[in-house]
């Protein structure tokens, strides 16, 4: 009986993590310095997918603004934001997550878009209204990729 209950509990947890378990943008908890400690989904990020999202112009398009030597096969790297070489050595996971979700909580007035934020925008094109630039799991995937950039 006891074992059955445990299994049921674990199954319910996995179920919630992969379906309804994502934290909504308005429910994300930021720390004092704009960091986000809790995973948005509870599912470990996929760094390989994060790398794709990083360069995808319709997704993260991080490369539009940041130099990233790990991606030297890509011809054009932006110069608007700081270089991301060694970014994981400068920031911890919670800080990086906070920067991805809504960097304005850490850097007031930054040009950097908020990748997991869906409200407070003006005149958003209809097809993007109420949507975030990245899905919760996509944020975790990009985060997993950034965490590999240690030098």
């Amino acid at each position, binding site marked *: 009986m006891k074992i059955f209950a445990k299994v049921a509990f674990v199954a319910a947890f996995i179920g919630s993590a992969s379906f309804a378990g994502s934290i909504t943008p308005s429910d994300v908890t930021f720390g004092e310095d704009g960091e986000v400690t809790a995973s948005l989904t509870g599912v470990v990020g996929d760094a390989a997918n994060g790398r794709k999202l990083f360069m995808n112009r319709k997704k993260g398009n991080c490369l*539009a603004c940041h130099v990233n030597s790990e991606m030297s096969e890509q011809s054009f790297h932006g110069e608007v934001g700081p270089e991301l070489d060694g970014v994981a050595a400068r920031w911890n996971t919670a800080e990086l997550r906070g920067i991805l979700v809504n960097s304005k909580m850490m850097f007031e007035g930054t040009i950097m878009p908020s990748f997991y934020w869906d409200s407070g925008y003006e005149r958003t094109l209809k097809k993007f209204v109420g949507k975030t630039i990245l899905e919760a799991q996509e944020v975790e995937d990009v985060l997993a990729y950034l965490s590999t950039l240690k030098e």
Partner: protein
Amino acid sequence: MKFKKLITVVLGALAIPFAAVAGEDSQLTVEGQLMVTSVAAPAHMENVDKIFSGWVFRKDETQALQMDDFDNPAFIFIDKAIDTFSKVEGTAGKACVSCHESPEVFKGLRASMPRVNSSGELETIPELVNGCRTERMGAEKWKWSGGSMAGIVGLIGLQSRGMSVDVTIDGPASSMWEKGKELYYTRVGQLNMSCANCHEDNYGNMIRADHLSMGQINGFPTYRLKNAKLNTIHGRFKGCMKNIRATPYKEGGDEFKALELYVASRSNGLTVETPSVRN
């Protein structure tokens, strides 16, 4: 020794702002006429010391296309507009040339537009053109960014090429100018950016393969290699807004007219380059 040190310091100080803009020392001559592509910013610009034409930010090959009218692809459309100028249309049986002897009579107009007219309304060149078409020619209005309109606005603008942009911002223009300024600094769209985020804070930087300019409009209508046609000012504003995932204002509407006035005033002192060539 002291002198040498001083020189190093001065050069070092100069290198910082200059490094932000590629080819800042290259000069634009069009058909032998020298254009002002960088100059001290107009007094109303609080955050910028020097202004640069978009030409400065383009690659050598693109820059070269604008230096000779035979190489400049915009002239395909200017030539068409010359034909349009004498083409009779509408119920009154008139062409542009029926009232305006030649395009040259418009010399100087482009340099001071947009402006407030005697009825107190901010007017732009496309509105003057459509006013003529509907009131004098009895012809249909042209679409704001359609080929016919872009061509004739280009032909009218060309007559002022080489003249200094000198848009009036005070007096009756001041309220629209203030409105335009507010729009320039307002963040919009899902990417949540204002004109200033890119064109004031980050000009000279690359956004992936694009070299960010100051967003000057002194060369419009401009031939873009990207779409191989003449592009209007409001058409470009619209494209920018879509890029940041914002719903564009209406071409010819009050918002874009006000923004045009404000952005034009940020190029006061540069020369009219119409029709320019850009990416």
